[in-house]
């Protein structure tokens, strides 16, 4: 254990401090950017009918589609900002060697209801602005042990990804399946292209770092790698978590599946 302890810290302390404060700055900027965009979207007329509805209710797709071009553009900006945030989270996790013992992994018991609420809360305004309906399906009393920040990161990324592929609907469902928790993000688009399905299948089988996915094909490789590492870090009695990509599911489009022991 001793040799790779310092591996992570080989850079000079000054460089590390510099990196940390730069990340801090970038996160601040992204926070302000996406926060401001959310407030603008909430205040822009096209969003009025949806914003007036209770938070948990699905957005009205018609509102966004018939909205002003300005509203559409704000929605596009928010979407891109969120993608930027996802990538930053994933790059950081990669830098900190997610999946290795050096990563600050913190699994604790959580309510599935709170998990879904938080994911929904993060995606709500973006989904509204794109005219996409998100429905959820979960057992409200279920409790499971996982690293909350990481799992929220994976699910929000999966939803942001589904926003790109779906026609107008996304389902987030969580259920206890024997000794696993199964989380699914499904959409009613045309499904994943074959290359993505292959990459998804490879993500669980290959252990070697970097070889799990082909980073060169596109940025979705990073997201897949991140998600599979997060799933794999969750382990219990020799069983590890996993991810899967499928086409079909209850909406007939793409399905992203995480299973946690």
């Amino acid at each position: 254990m001793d040799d790779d302890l310092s591996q992570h810290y080989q850079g000079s302390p000054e460089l590390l401090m510099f990196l940390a404060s730069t990340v801090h700055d970038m996160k601040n900027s992204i926070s302000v950017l996406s926060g401001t965009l959310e407030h603008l979207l909430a205040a822009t007329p096209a969003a009025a009918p949806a914003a007036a509805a209770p938070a948990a209710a699905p957005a009205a797709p018609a509102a966004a589609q018939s909205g002003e071009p300005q509203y559409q553009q704000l929605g596009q900006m928010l979407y891109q900002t969120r993608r930027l945030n996802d990538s930053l989270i994933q790059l950081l996790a990669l830098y900190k060697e997610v999946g290795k013992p050096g990563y600050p992994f913190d699994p604790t018991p959580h309510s599935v209801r709170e998990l879904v609420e938080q994911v929904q809360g993060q995606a709500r305004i973006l989904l509204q602005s794109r005219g996409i309906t998100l429905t959820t399906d979960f057992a409200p009393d279920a409790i499971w042990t996982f690293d909350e920040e990481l799992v929220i990161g994976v699910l929000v990324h999966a939803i942001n990804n589904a926003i790109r592929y779906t026609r107008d609907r996304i389902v987030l469902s969580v259920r206890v399946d024997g000794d696993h928790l199964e989380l699914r993000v499904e959409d009613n688009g045309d499904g994943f292209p074959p290359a993505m399905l292959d990459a998804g299948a490879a993500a669980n089988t290959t252990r070697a770092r970097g070889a799990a996915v082909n980073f060169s094909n596109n940025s979705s490789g990073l997201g897949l790698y991140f998600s599979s590492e997060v799933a794999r870090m969750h382990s219990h009695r020799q069983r590890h978590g996993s991810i899967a990509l499928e086409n079909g599911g209850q909406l007939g489009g793409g399905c992203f599946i995480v299973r946690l022991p």
Partner: protein
Amino acid sequence: MTAIVKNDGEIDWGEKRYLIIDDFVGIRQLLRESLRNLGAKHIDQAASGGEGMMLLAKTRYDVVLCDYNLGDGKNGQQVLEEARIRNLILPSSVWLMVSAEKSVESVMGAAEHQPDAYIIKPITEGVLLTRLNRVWLKKQIFREIDQAYADKDYLRAARLCEEQIPVNPLHAIDLLRMKATLQLKAGDPLGARAVYRQVLEERDYNWARCGLAKILMHDGEVEDAQKMFQAVIADNRFYIDAFDQLAQAFQLQGKHEEAFDVLQKAAKLSPNSVPRQRTLGQTALKLENIPVAEKAFRKCIDIGEYSVAKTVDAYFGMARVCGKKNDTKEAIRLLNAAVHQFGGDQVTLRAKITEGLVYHETGDLRRARKSGDELEAMLAEEGRQRPDTATCLDMATLLFAVGVKEAPVGLLCYIARNNHDNVPLMDEVQKIFDKARMGDEGVELIRSSRKEAADMMNKGVLLWKSDRLGEAIDWMRVARHALPHNMRILFNSAQILISRLQQTGYVRELADEAIEVLMHVDAIAPGQPRFAQLMEQLAMLAPVSGVVAAAAASEYEAANGAVPDR
């Protein structure tokens, strides 16, 4: 007793008082906007840790949102620590630590002052509300338990945990963790052990593995404990608590070099801990590794600057380092600085001891002798309290070394009287006598001191057994005055006072006296089963539950400094 808390509370966040501490104006505006959307009306803002402390000193906030990274000066963790230690936040207050990325601090295991929750940027209203509700609910569940804990009624607190577990499955693990902590405080390691094993059946939580290993270590199964700490570290490289404990396990096995290695790694992973740098410095000093000791003590002084954990030990350690480097002048300057900054009789006394050691080590025997004479004079002063046992031993060693005789003999006899049934400590005292070429006299002195203590105790017990409780109480007061640190006498003293209360009914003065004695004994030797039992008996006698104990405890702390805890 209030009803058991159920999982359906709706909270009005509009009327709460909020404080936002962040050095970035954009984030402050954003958070303020989000809070307003939750209905908040009273929101204050601070742009730095210092400004935050000023506001915290003026207003009792219900919710504090504090950025971890605050630029120059205090960081978020230090603001939290200071606010907690200076009692500027209520136990019911919610402290959310905001950070840019997944914080290492959140998984370190034993950070002394944990915030109620960590939130990672960007913060959305939904996440903020979920976390606020979650923390509030948890505080409701733990309110009575925390109160009993603060009152040091550990047995009752542990029972309360048990009552909450079946109705709060989401917090079952946290409740079990608290229960085990309480059982340890109450001197019931077997109970705590069973709880940790029960939790580990469920899942391999690192805190439970560490908790179990700590018990094994104290039970003498040091090698098993060592392996468990190593397993935790292999699993989670940031679990600092495991490093600190592993170092102790090595030290117990006499493997000082290994302990030193582990401490160095821990200090590298998490350098901003005053106690860790202090332990590293002291271990390095013992191993004569002067460069590391110097670095550790210097760091300890630096980080102490902004921390309430600031310690005088760092100054004494640094002075020793200077002595080893033959820089007597700098050593004396540091000792003066320590006395000036920290003040108090104990610090003055310890500074004088360190001064003597430095002179003695650098070969300046004339000045060392002078320090010794001054120490002797200080000890002879009327009414001056003796320092803790470790300092007494240091002092006796030094005084013998510089050729003083009467004062160190007095100190060692004092230790023997106050610890008459502590056999390993008696061996240590005998060794100091041996080294001063007073072996035979030492044997006799220790024997008579121990007998003196035993006689005093027996007289009290005899009076108690023959039901002359009034006389027994008076006698124990005399015994306590003569032997202020003797655990057996202190416990018996409290026991006799409680027997009296059980006969006569509750009398405030006697109850307060018993509590004062118990607080004192818990401060010098925490985690005694007899402490927990006596506190529980007292709590049952009190007309209002908890209140009396809490008041007495805070009075004791006001007079004697904080009781070392957790």
